[in-house]
């Protein structure tokens, strides 16, 4: 397939996944904001989330304080910041439009109507948008897009590139959420501090991991187990291990003459997580681990881009 087509496919699915990840974050915090006495914890969690998303500076230019409703609106509906959910939906649709002939009609129509709806919602009555409903809708549209992708696309290169986009983005998102909460996740770092149970449920719900946690551990929520679930569980759909496994497998299906080293690195990332134990990760320090993981992820996306998506001009 055309490199440019692969590039658009890859970014199309990254943007939809990013929109969903953001919606999950907003959703979790929004629920938290509805609970009594959540003020300080909420503001703190929102602050670190904005930092992890690199949105804090842009937000501070418009607002003096972290005010939940303003943060929710900023992340969800902001038309100028390229990182907002609204912008992600637009970018997903723009990428899809550039290759609409290579998408199934169902997939194109799904992305197109998502964008049309989002646009009419935001342009007509941004102030009255019910944030809870909006993020719920975004999650649904993302589920639908993924379902249509899996349900209608041929299992060819195009499909594998959309999957690579999805799982690279998801790995990135999970790692960022973990980064935003890393201080709470290090066991015994601050023994005097009693972890707020709502904090955990925010984190777990943002990753659809709350129910999975209960089913996996049948135990109270402890920091070590949360980290273990989100990093090392192979059957947890949003864990780092699961995402790396999917990236590696899809990458092997599109292999070309120059991609051997990229595949090796993806395989190495997968193997590292597959054979690690939580104790080893915490021994080296969780922040350190996450930082390295994000750097490896960046390296991997750069390599994928140069191997497949934007090959240098031929002589």
């Amino acid at each position: 397939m055309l490199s440019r087509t692969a590039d658009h496919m890859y970014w199309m699915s990254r943007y939809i996944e990013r929109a969903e990840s953001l919606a999950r974050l907003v959703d979790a915090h929004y629920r938290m904001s509805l609970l009594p006495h959540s003020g300080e914890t909420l503001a703190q969690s929102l602050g670190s989330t904005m930092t992890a998303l690199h949105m804090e500076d842009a937000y501070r230019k418009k607002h003096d304080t972290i005010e939940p409703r303003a943060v929710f609106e900023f992340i969800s509906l902001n038309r100028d910041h390229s990182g907002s959910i609204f912008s992600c939906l637009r970018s997903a649709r723009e990428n899809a439009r550039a290759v609409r002939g290579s998408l199934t009609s169902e997939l194109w129509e799904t992305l197109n109507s998502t964008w049309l709806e989002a646009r009419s919602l935001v342009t007509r009555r941004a102030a009255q948008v019910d944030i809870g409903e909006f993020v719920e809708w975004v999650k649904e549209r993302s589920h639908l897009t993924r379902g249509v992708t899996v349900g209608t696309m041929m299992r060819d290169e195009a499909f594998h590139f959309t999957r690579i986009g999805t799982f690279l983005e998801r790995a990135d998102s999970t790692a960022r959420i973990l980064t935003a909460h890393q201080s709470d996740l290090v066991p015994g770092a601050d023994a005097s501090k009693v972890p707020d149970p709502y904090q955990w449920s925010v984190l777990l719900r943002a990753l659809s991991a709350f129910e999975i946690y209960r089913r996996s551990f049948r135990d109270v929520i402890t920091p070590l187990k949360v980290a273990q679930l989100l990093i090392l569980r192979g059957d947890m759909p949003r864990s780092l291990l699961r995402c790396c496994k999917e990236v590696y497998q899809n990458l092997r299906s599109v292999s070309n003459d120059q991609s051997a080293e990229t595949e090796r690195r993806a395989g190495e990332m997968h193997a590292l997580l597959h054979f690690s134990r939580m104790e080893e990760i915490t021994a080296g320090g969780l922040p350190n681990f996450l930082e390295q993981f994000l750097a490896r992820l960046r390296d991997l996306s750069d390599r994928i881009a140069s191997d497949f998506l934007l090959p240098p001009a031929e002589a």
Partner: protein
Amino acid sequence: MGSKPYNEMALADGTTRAHYLRYAQWLTHQPAERLAQKRAEADALFHRVGITFAVYGQDEGAERLIPFDIVPRVLPLEEWIRLETGLKQRVRALNAFIHDIYHDQQILKAGVIPAEQVLCNSQYRPEMQGVDVPGGIYAHIAGIDIVRDDAGEFRVLEDNLRVPSGVSYMLENRKMMMRLFPELFSGHRVAPVDHYPEVLLDNLRSVAPIGVTDPTVVLLTAGAHNSAYFEHAFLAQQMGIELVEGQDLFVRDEAVFMRTTQGPQRVDVIYRRIDDDFLDPLVFRPDSMLGIPGLLTAYRAGRVTIANAIGTGVADDKSIYPYVPEMIRFYLGQSPIIGNVHTWMLRRQEDKDYVLAHLPELVVKEVHGAGGYGMLIGPAATKAEIDLFRRQIIATPERYIAQPTLALSTCPTFADGGLAPRHIDLRPFVLSGRDVTIVPGGLTRVALREGSLVVNSSQGGGTKDTWVLET
């Protein structure tokens, strides 16, 4: 002028024409609310599917629908057969003309067309002189604009031999009609059009460079911001070929390759939807970001086919149009089945004198204008507009032609106050490859504004489904 336009649906006495009887009967039984609801449904569907065209000069990314009218334009079989025969004849002669111009120029030597008319035309491409193209075919895809005059005669208004567009609307309009009103299709035997992409692909494959047995065909687009992008993506998808931009292609050793995830892949046939000027920055416009440097070298070496060929504009220019009936006689030895619209060439003194004396009655067109721009419609123009054209004609008469203001035929169309007659034309798409083929019908364009004769989508035109009835 002043004469009553031909009504496609009704006879002069108000009774319905035979081929519209069944439809008219169906229509009288449709409650107004149902039709209104169906029209809204069509709009919503076109939006969702993204059947839009980009609007230049508006916000970036502005996309609009081309209005779709639910009343079909119906052609009886015998009329269509005559049209089809006439169109094939015309396109054969046009292809023969282009081949001749870029080879022996017999038609110029015979004095049928003044040589300077052709050789000094900006659309004449000296780069093509002596270049042999597969099958001698230049205009693989031709969109011939047909109008019906007040006497009910079909006439060719314009030949489009460069990158004619609109065929996707022909296909989507049919799909939409079948979706909205399936019952109409069980009651009528409407000739199908869905096979167009297949015929097109077969034609493109048939003109691959000699020796290529399984050619790779691509569609070259200017990109997602081009006004016809929807059509490019649609056709590429329907044919199962890659939709490429200039940046996806490169030339090496006089052959064209595309950049794929698996490395360079050879390209044999390029169905291009960008103009000659932008194809190869080394030869044509050096500032073109859309083209492929070196493409012309590969083309001239016969290593790749470009459809339509480079240099077809020399045959569809408005200054050449008046000579097409002569071409048919010259190359085919036949008399033209479909006539032209009478045309005054203002570089001729006597034509100029006549036109200047009758400007308020005539349509004046710029020879190189397209899309309904650069045009004066005398009866609808203000005195100032007429004076402006008068001055321009006196200054550079060779830049203009004039035609009588045609009373284009009308077809009932939904307007604000209900059904009302609106002027229409027809663009059938003529495909030349192994043979010359036409999918029955074409794209019917309709001028939605009352009394307007301009059917271009850029100027308030809409479209209709076009039916050729098999019985």
